[in-house]
């Protein structure tokens, strides 16, 4: 049984999704979806445990050996990613039931479809991570993308439709570019297996086709991960999607795209080609810095708090790309660690906002006046998430900031380190705007009062406490991240 874990990771949610759609509306659907997510989390945890103990796991799909069959290949990097996505998937699923039943403009008869789509999205994301086959990445990318367009479009606000459409267009362009890139690679090497590609590419690396493939993949993946200035689809999509969907996608979708970027550039092309020959870091570094700075500044001027956090996400993606463009073990550790930490902090923040909008119906800054008094637990979680976003010690955010600055100083890049520190002050500004409004302004008269229901608070606080826990015990979010970084760079054990 346990040797089938890699494939079960994908098959379990894939089978559960249509089952959800077939079930009659009611609690049973959610229970099935929740159990599926929990099972996925368990599988991911077991996989990580085995990988850390025994090294790389290779699984031949249907018994066809690689490179002819599809290979699922799990090393420290993707086992770690699987855990992030599965954990967020499970926590947000626990949060989603109340939101779906009461806050989404979806008739009760259609609600099972929400869970089915959610599970499909999860399937796609997990599949992209676990597979060792380049074309398989594209297939799962499409599964997750299509389902995420649907999930975004069911937001209460009608602008969710245009936001989803915008994302659809940009996402499709990105996916097409990725497909073209993979196609070129296949033409040149005749293989789609990642390990096989890595072995054959050096022989043909100095050709225009491979360089074109590299360019197509770079742009396609950058679109999906919302690298500045290709991030324009993101703020609207995050702002108008239902809160549970925003929490899920913000914490997972762009992270998985970054993982794909790492996989292609470090494993398939190899760091020597990507950063030595093609000088990708010379492109990524300025874009990352521009993204961090501009998105942080724009976030300060948003009045919709969800939109503000969306811009903050663009900035945070910039931090991860910055870590990658350092091309050192410390830099990659910072980036990979931030994948995890950012999932925790943004998950907390968006879920806390979900609690707020559940009670008062909106998350614009003026409507949030006095919320701190009315909903102390919700805003408590928001403050913890916000502190983590700023990177205060004893929160998860500090861990990634520590490694990022360390990485920059190791390379002697003083201005970069200073910019990272300065932009975390910008985060103080935009988070504290919300905190001041929530705690210092009086609530308007006649506001519906009361704390969010426990079904929302418990998952929110679970993530909030995780922010604090992983700020102190860094063996997972920094320790494993370091092993993943070493594996990607091909150094160390």
């Amino acid at each position, binding site marked *: 049984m346990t040797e089938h874990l890699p494939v079960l990771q994908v098959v379990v949610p894939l089978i559960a999704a249509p089952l959800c759609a077939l079930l009659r509306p009611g609690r049973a659907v959610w229970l099935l979806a929740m159990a599926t997510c929990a099972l996925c989390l368990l599988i991911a945890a077991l996989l990580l445990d085995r990988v850390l103990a025994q090294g790389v796991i290779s699984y031949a799909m249907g018994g066809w050996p690689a490179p002819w069959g599809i290979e699922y290949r799990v090393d420290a990097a993707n086992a770690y990613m699987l855990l992030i996505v599965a954990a967020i998937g499970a926590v947000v699923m626990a949060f989603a039931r109340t939101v779906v039943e009461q806050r989404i403009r979806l008739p009760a008869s259609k609600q099972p479809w929400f869970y089915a789509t959610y599970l499909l999205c999860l399937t796609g994301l997990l599949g992209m991570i676990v597979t060792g086959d380049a074309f398989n990445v594209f297939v799962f990318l499409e599964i997750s993308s299509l389902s995420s367009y649907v999930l975004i479009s069911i937001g209460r606000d009608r602008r969710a439709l245009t936001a989803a459409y915008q994302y659809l267009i940009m996402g499709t362009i990105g996916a097409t570019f990725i497909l073209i890139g993979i196609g070129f690679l296949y033409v040149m090497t005749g293989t789609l297996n990642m390990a096989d590609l890595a072995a054959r590419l050096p022989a043909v690396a100095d050709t225009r086709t491979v360089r074109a493939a590299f360019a197509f993949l770079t742009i396609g993946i950058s679109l999906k991960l919302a690298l500045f200035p290709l991030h324009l689809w993101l703020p609207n999509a995050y702002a108008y999607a239902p809160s549970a969907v925003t929490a899920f996608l913000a914490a997972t979708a762009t992270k998985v795209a970054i993982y794909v970027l790492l996989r292609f550039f470090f494993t398939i092309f190899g760091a020597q080609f990507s950063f030595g020959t093609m000088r990708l870091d010379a492109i990524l570094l300025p874009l990352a810095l521009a993204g961090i700075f501009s998105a942080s500044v724009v976030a300060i001027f948003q009045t919709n708090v969800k939109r503000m956090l969306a811009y903050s996400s663009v900035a945070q993606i910039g931090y991860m790309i910055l870590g990658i463009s350092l091309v050192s073990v410390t830099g990659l550790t910072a980036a990979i660690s931030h994948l995890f930490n950012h999932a925790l902090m943004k998950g907390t923040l968006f879920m806390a906002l979900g609690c707020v909008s559940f009670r008062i119906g909106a998350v614009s800054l003026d409507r949030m006046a006095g919320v701190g008094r009315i909903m102390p637990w919700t805003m408590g979680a928001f403050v913890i998430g916000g*502190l983590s976003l*700023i*990177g*205060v*010690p*004893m929160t998860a955010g500090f861990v990634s*900031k*520590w490694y990022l*600055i*360390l990485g920059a*100083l*190791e390379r002697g890049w003083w201005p970069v*380190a*200073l910019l990272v*520190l*300065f932009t*975390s*002050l910008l985060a*103080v500004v935009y988070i*504290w705007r919300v905190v*001041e409004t929530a*705690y*210092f302004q009086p609530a308007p008269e006649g506001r519906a009062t009361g704390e969010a229901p426990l079904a929302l608070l418990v998952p929110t606080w679970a993530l909030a406490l995780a922010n604090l826990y992983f700020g*102190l*015990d*860094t*063996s997972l979010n*920094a320790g494993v991240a370091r092993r993943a970084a070493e594996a990607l760079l091909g150094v160390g054990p």
Partner: protein
Amino acid sequence: MNSETILPLALFIPLLSAFFIALNDGRPDWREGATLLGSLLLLGVVFSLLPAVATGARPTVDLLEFAPDLPLRLSVEPLGMTFACVAALLWPLNSLYSIGYMRGNQEQHQTRFYICFAIAIASTIGIAFAGNLLTLFIFYETLTLSTYPLVTHKGTEEAKQAGRLYLGILVGTSISFLLLAIVWTWVVAGTLEFAPGGILAGKIDGPLVNVLLALYMFGIGKAALMPFHRWLPAAMVAPTPVSALLHAVAVVKAGVFSVLKVIVYVFGIDFLKDTGASSWLMWVAALTVLLASFVALTKDNLKARLAYSTVSQLGYVVLGAALATSMGVIGGSMQIVMHAFGKITLFFCAGAIYTAAHKTEVSQLDGLGRAMPFTFGAFLIGALSIIGLPPLGGSWSKWYLLVGAADAEQWALMAVLLLSSLLNVAYLLPVPARGFFAAAPAGGAAQIPIREAPLACVVPLCLTALGCLWLFFQADSLYALLAPITVR
């Protein structure tokens, strides 16, 4: 129990106390009981560590591992021991005073107040016992965050603005300068330990030493070195017990304590003396001492005047550290203790005056001393100690600082110290002088009845005033405790 097992208790007792305070939200007497009990337990724990540390032991406990070779470490050395003793001694007194003050003024959100207070104390202890720079930084930031709700306690627009300044300066400097300096140290030295004699000698040289020192000194915004001192007067919007313990003792002393730690155990005074990197710091500190004194002269609001006085007195500690001589460092360390007792007395008095007579300005105090003889008497003692007159504790720290300046042959700085003492006289003594000798405002009766603040306020301030006196006779043992810190 040995010191290693006791050490973590010092951190957890205030936290546990905060937990019990939260549990007893609806029962004020139980809640205040939890505060007082916690503070007394902490006092016992901290003082039980003292004998071992005085005889040369350095109990060390690793709480957990933050990164490879970078643990979260508690370790006690004489400087931290001294600071922890001051905080632990003054917390029970301040708790007693808080109860009188908060009840006397019928303040809101008292539970939140006591919880944040206990967490702030835990952070202070964490700073005092930090075994490396990372641990110090972590508790430094916790202290800032836990005191933010205390500064903005009143929830008014003024409190909000003060909170912005407070957070803006303290978080801004610590993130942009201090964190950078710490990571830089880690990159060049490969360790963040506090080691006798420093860890940087031979690892970095030239003008970079000056840059790194500047990052540390301005990064530690809690030391209120000009021009990053504005948060301290702003923080005076908080209730007086907060100003007394946190903004005269715990927070600002955490700042200058960190300065001393960095200079003694990270740079090492020999290294600083050899490179001369700290000479600019002497002048910045001296300028802070003088300018803040002049500003204090212009303030009519009593708490604002005391706040600028604090800025000036903190400059003494930085000055002592910047001299990079043993005597300077010891004088600076003593100043932490002596100023703590003196200044908390003055703030207690200011709060007692506000509680009993609702007066906040110096010019309103005419004749009030005859109605509140204990309060104004204590104020006089505290003021004389800060000025540095025997037989009060403050005279010793000034003495050692002067000796340190003479050792370093900085005659101009000696002049600054003496001039500053005169300025202290000019801005502190008018308060008791007006209270005792000026005529009460027109219409006042010839015979003023005694009308003191509640007993819970008056007893602590008398005790701290007596403490100033007691410290004068403790200078020897304090010197013996502190002497080893500059020895390699």
